[in-house]
C-alpha cells in the first residue's frame, strides 16, 4: 500500500497491508503535526504533493526496503491538505521476521521519504505562514 491521500491516515489499513504469517515484528512510524517548529508556534500545516510522482516514489522506496531487508513488507501513506495539530502527515509500516530489521527498515524508509518524495509543507502560525525547507535537524 503506497498512497497519497486527502483523508486522515488509517493506521489499521497499513498494519493489515504488511501483515503476513512469517512476520514476527511490525515497526510503524507516524509523523505528526506539532505545535512548534524552529522556535515558532504552529497552528496547522498544509501539505502539497506532486501526487502521481509522490505515489511512485513511495512505491519505489517500499520496493527498495523489501529487497534490502529480505522478508520485509512495507506500506507508506502520505497525507496532503490542511492538517490540525496532532494529525498524522505520514505513516510508514514495515513488517519483518525479526524486530531489528523492522526498526532499521522503517527508519530507513522515513528518511528516504523525507529526502525524495515531492511533497512540501507550509506552516501556519500566529506569526504568519511559511513554506518550509529542510534542515539538518532530525
Amino acid at each position, binding site marked *: 500500500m503506497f498512497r497519497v491521500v486527502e483523508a486522515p491516515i488509517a493506521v489499521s489499513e497499513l498494519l493489515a497491508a504488511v501483515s503476513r504469517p512469517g512476520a514476527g515484528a511490525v515497526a510503524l512510524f507516524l509523523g505528526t503535526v506539532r505545535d512548534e517548529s524552529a522556535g515558532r508556534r504552529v497552528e496547522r500545516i498544509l501539505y502539497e504533493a506532486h501526487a502521481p510522482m509522490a505515489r511512485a516514489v513511495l512505491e519505489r522506496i517500499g520496493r527498495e526496503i523489501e529487497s534490502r531487508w529480505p522478508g520485509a513488507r512495507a506500506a507508506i501513506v502520505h497525507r496532503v491538505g490542511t492538517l490540525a495539530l496532532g494529525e498524522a502527515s505520514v505513516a510508514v509500516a514495515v513488517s519483518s521476521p525479526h524486530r531489528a530489521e523492522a526498526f532499521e527498515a522503517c527508519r530507513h524508509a522515513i528518511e528516504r*521519504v523525507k529526502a525524495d518524495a*515531492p511533497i512540501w509543507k507550509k506552516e501556519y502560525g500566529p506569526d504568519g505562514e511559511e*513554506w518550509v525547507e529542510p534542515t539538518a535537524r532530525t
Partner: protein
Amino acid sequence: MRVRVLFFAAMRERIGRESETVDVPAGATVAHLLTALAHAHPAVRPLLDRSRVALGDEFVPPDARLSEGGEAAVIPPVSGGTP
C-alpha cells in the same frame, strides 16, 4: 519545441500559476529549461537554483533531454514526512 512545466509549493505561489508552457530549442536539456525559467522569472532564481527537475516519476540530471510536448516538474527542496 514546447514543454509543459509544473510548479509546486513556494515556486507555484511566487510564479503565480501551477504550470506554463515554455519554448526551448530542439534537443534542449533540463539545464536549458532552467536557464529559460530563470530568465522568465528572475525573482525565483535562488529557489530554482535549489530545485531538482523530474520527468514523469523520476528525478533527472541537468543533461537529460526534454521531448516535444513533454512535461517537466520543478521540484523545490522537499519537506514532506515529519519534523
